[in-house]
Each structure stands twice: as structure tokens, then as C-alpha cells.
């Protein structure tokens, strides 16, 4: 039985500019996966941005040294396709009966298409939202799973006036994304507008019932002598039968001696 919980996918990612491969996502995750960091594929920064990946692989210089940023093509000049990238990795996992596996992206800028073992899923736009995909039925019975993600830049990357200025031509404000990336009085423009899988990617194993977004709050009375902890959570039954559950909540305080007060 696979262990319940999270495994972060933060290593062994590859990346390539989408225009440099002629394969689609189904082919990349079935018959024609990349074999390693062989050109045009390169080691990827995940979590991170496309520009971070290009810097990591020495394709472009680090923009934060000297005037290096001037040597990097801006998305307004190159077009969005130039910073549209494939990211690829593999993971192994075998589930037991009644177990479920979710593929989680804590944030992507700006939208993406996900392919797992040949199956396509579309991640809608928005830089500050989590995506959670139940991929239980898509897992490879052999245990090795091929994952490819095509990441698209913001829809309105804008252009940078020659004199610079706060937020460039302001186009980025049309998207729900960071706005400093068109440049500010303290910052040069970020050439890829922070396109990428910029926050944690993970897989998460549960049984039939999953805990979603618990909320903790407290109330105070009698000069903090009486305090109440209030907790609410969503519980999702992914199974096909009624789930009879024992739900336990516990609050402990670790003392210096590593004892827990219960």
C-alpha cells in the first residue's frame, strides 16, 4: 500500500522551447519521451520560471548582473511562443485498491496543458490559484508515469517603452498576474514575465476520503483565560460507497523536553 501523504516533484525536470520539438503532449508522454538533458532539452528549474531555466542552463546570462538583462530577448519582441515551454518529468507510484492520487500544482503562470501517460488535462489561466487533478485512473499500472506540462505565458505581456516606466505599457494589468514584471522604478523588466511552474508540484496519496483546506480560528474570553479553537474542514469522499469515518482533531504543544501535552 502506498503511504498516505505528499511527495514533492522538485527534481529531474527537463524543459524545451515548444517550437523546438515537433512532438505533441501525447507523444511526449507515451512513445517519444525525452531521454535526458540532450539538446534541445535542458535541465529545468521547477519550481521556477522559464527564464530561471534558461539561466540555469547557461542559455542566457543572469539578468541581475551588470547590464545582462539587455542581452535577453523581451517577450514583447520575441512573441509569446518564444517563452512557451514544455516541462517534463517522470514519477513512479503504485496505488492499492481504494487509494487515490492527485497531481497538485500550487501555482502556474499563466496557463498550461498537462499530459500524463498520454492523457490531456487543461489548467485554466491565473497566476495565483492551485490546481488539483485526480489522476488515479490515468496512472501506469507498471508504476512509471510520464508527465509533460506545456506552460503558456500571460496573455497580455505588454511591451516596454524605451524610457521604461512603472509597469511598462500597463498591459500586464489586464491579467491576474504579477505587475512588476514589465519593469518598475526599482526593477528592470523580467523578459519572460515570470512564465513557468513557479511554485510547488506534488503528488498526494489518500484513501477514499480526503481532507481539504481546514480552517482554524480562535475566540478569547476572560482576559485570555478561556480560549476556544474552532476548526472547519471539507471532507471529500472519492469512493463509490458511503464512507463511515472517524475524524480526529488534536492540538499539542511541544515542550522543551519533547513531551507533548495532550
Amino acid at each position, binding site marked *: 500500500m502506498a503511504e498516505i501523504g505528499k511527495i514533492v516533484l522538485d527534481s529531474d525536470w527537463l524543459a524545451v522551447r515548444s517550437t523546438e520539438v515537433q512532438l505533441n503532449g501525447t507523444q511526449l508522454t507515451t512513445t517519444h519521451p525525452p531521454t535526458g538533458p540532450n539538446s534541445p532539452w535542458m535541465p529545468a528549474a521547477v519550481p521556477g520560471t522559464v527564464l*530561471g531555466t534558461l539561466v540555469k542552463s547557461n542559455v542566457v546570462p543572469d539578468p541581475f548582473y551588470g547590464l545582462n538583462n539587455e542581452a535577453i530577448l523581451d517577450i514583447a519582441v520575441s512573441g509569446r511562443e518564444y517563452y512557451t515551454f514544455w516541462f517534463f518529468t517522470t514519477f513512479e507510484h503504485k496505488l492499492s485498491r481504494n487509494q487515490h492520487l492527485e497531481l497538485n500544482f*500550487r501555482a502556474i503562470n499563466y496557463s498550461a496543458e498537462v499530459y500524463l501517460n498520454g492523457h490531456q488535462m487543461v489548467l485554466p489561466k491565473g497566476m495565483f490559484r492551485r490546481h488539483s487533478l485526480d489522476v488515479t485512473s490515468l496512472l501506469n499500472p507498471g508504476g512509471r508515469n510520464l508527465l509533460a506540462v506545456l506552460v503558456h505565458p500571460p496573455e497580455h505581456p505588454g511591451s516596454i517603452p524605451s524610457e521604461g516606466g512603472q509597469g511598462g505599457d500597463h498591459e500586464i494589468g489586464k491579467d*491576474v498576474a504579477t505587475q512588476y514584471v514589465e519593469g518598475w522604478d526599482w526593477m528592470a523588466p523580467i523578459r519572460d514575465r515570470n512564465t513557468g511552474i513557479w511554485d510547488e508540484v506534488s503528488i498526494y496519496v489518500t484513501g477514499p476520503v480526503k481532507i*481539504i483546506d481546514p480552517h482554524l480560528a480562535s475566540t478569547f474570553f476572560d482576559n485570555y483565560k478561556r480560549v*476556544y*479553537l474552532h476548526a472547519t474542514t471539507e471532507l471529500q469522499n472519492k469512493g463509490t460507497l458511503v*464512507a463511515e469515518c472517524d475524524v480526529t*482533531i488534536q492540538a499539542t504543544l*511541544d515542550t522543551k523536553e519533547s513531551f507533548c501535552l495532550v
Partner: protein
Amino acid sequence: EHLQTIHVSIPAGKTIQYTFPEIFFYKPELWWPNGMGKQTMYNVSIAVDVKGYGESDSWSQPYGFRKITSHIDSKTGGRLFKVNDQPIFIRGGNWILSDGLLRLSRRRYEADIKFHAGMNLNMIRCWGGALAERPEFYHYCDIYGLLVWQEFWITGDVDGRGDPISNPDGPLDHELFLLCARDTVKLLRNHPSLALWVGGNEQVPPPDINNALKNELQLHPHFMEFDEIGTSTQYL
């Protein structure tokens, strides 16, 4: 006394929202900002066992008991904060992000935030033109006692001002903005360092967004305090 197990039935394929009976604490250790006391945190864990299966899922989160109140002072126009009913003189740092290529790491966050605490600051303001900061950022603010003023993604320079004049109506897709805001609140709301949500930088968001944020972030009456004349005072 700080352990409860409840039986719950969940229909097949359904999601329910469940509220536990409140858990009583007598004189718990409180969480204080940097310079006012310890940053005590309890570990709160939730686990679900399914009959015929066993442990199905578990979750845990360090949690600090603290009450943060703030209001605009009518004489100075400034915002005054209290933590656990004690006035606090805010010494804040302005934060954009840790790295422009979003090479965000726990190690870097810890160093940056520990440095803020070492400078005797007690608040970090996350500017609306950059990120809703990540849980790792908040984790270290919890540990080092930095209150966080978190802005949503609106700036005057991109939404209403600038040359040429920018669109004052915020992003094109207001529903998407609110969806992202709701999800961000759910991601960060349990951190004791989270002190204040702000609509944006130097700008009021478009009315529909602003009203939705104010409405959805207002406290449940259960969590409001009332003064002697019956006027409610909100706190997070």
C-alpha cells in the same frame, strides 16, 4: 482535553463541510509578534479514518493563538494595531519578493525573514504588484514573529494611473481575480503572522472586486467583539 474524535458519514462521491465542536483551552500560551513575547505555536492535526480502510488522510499545521485588531485613528489617519489587546508600535519593512526569477527557497526565506526580525521589525508588507507570498514565507514569519500585511494584485500605476493612462477597471476577468483571491485566502489563512488583507497598493480595486473582497473577508458574527454601546469591532 485537546483531542476529539467524531463520527461522520459522507455520501459516495460527495464533499461535505464539517465543523468540529470547539476545543477549550485554559490559559493557552499566546503567539506574540517579534519583541513582545514568544512565538508559541501548537501543532494542530486532523486525521480521518475510514471504516474498512484505515487512515485515509491526515493534515497538520502549526497554529498560534493570537488576536489582532486594527482601526484607522481619526486624529492621525494612521492604522493602529493591537495584538492580544496590547498596543503595538509597528516597525514595518516593505517586501516585493525574494527573487525576480522566482527562485524561491525555504533557506532564502528563512534568511530574509530572520534578518527582518534581527533589524527589530515586527511587520512585513507584501506589495500588491508582486506575489501573494508562499506558505514557506508565512512559516518563517510565524516563527520569527513578523506580522504580514498582504495586498492583492492591484497597483495604481497599472490600474488607473500611468502614462499612458492605464485601465482603471483592474484585470479584464474580475471573476478570475476573485477566484484567485479566494484560493489564496484558503492557502494562507491559518498562519498566525497573517495580520491584514489589503485590496491593493495605493489604489482601491474596482467596486465589484472591492465589495466582494470586503464582503467575503468580513468576520462571522461569532468572531466579532462588541463594545459597550454595541458597536462591533472586527478582528482577524
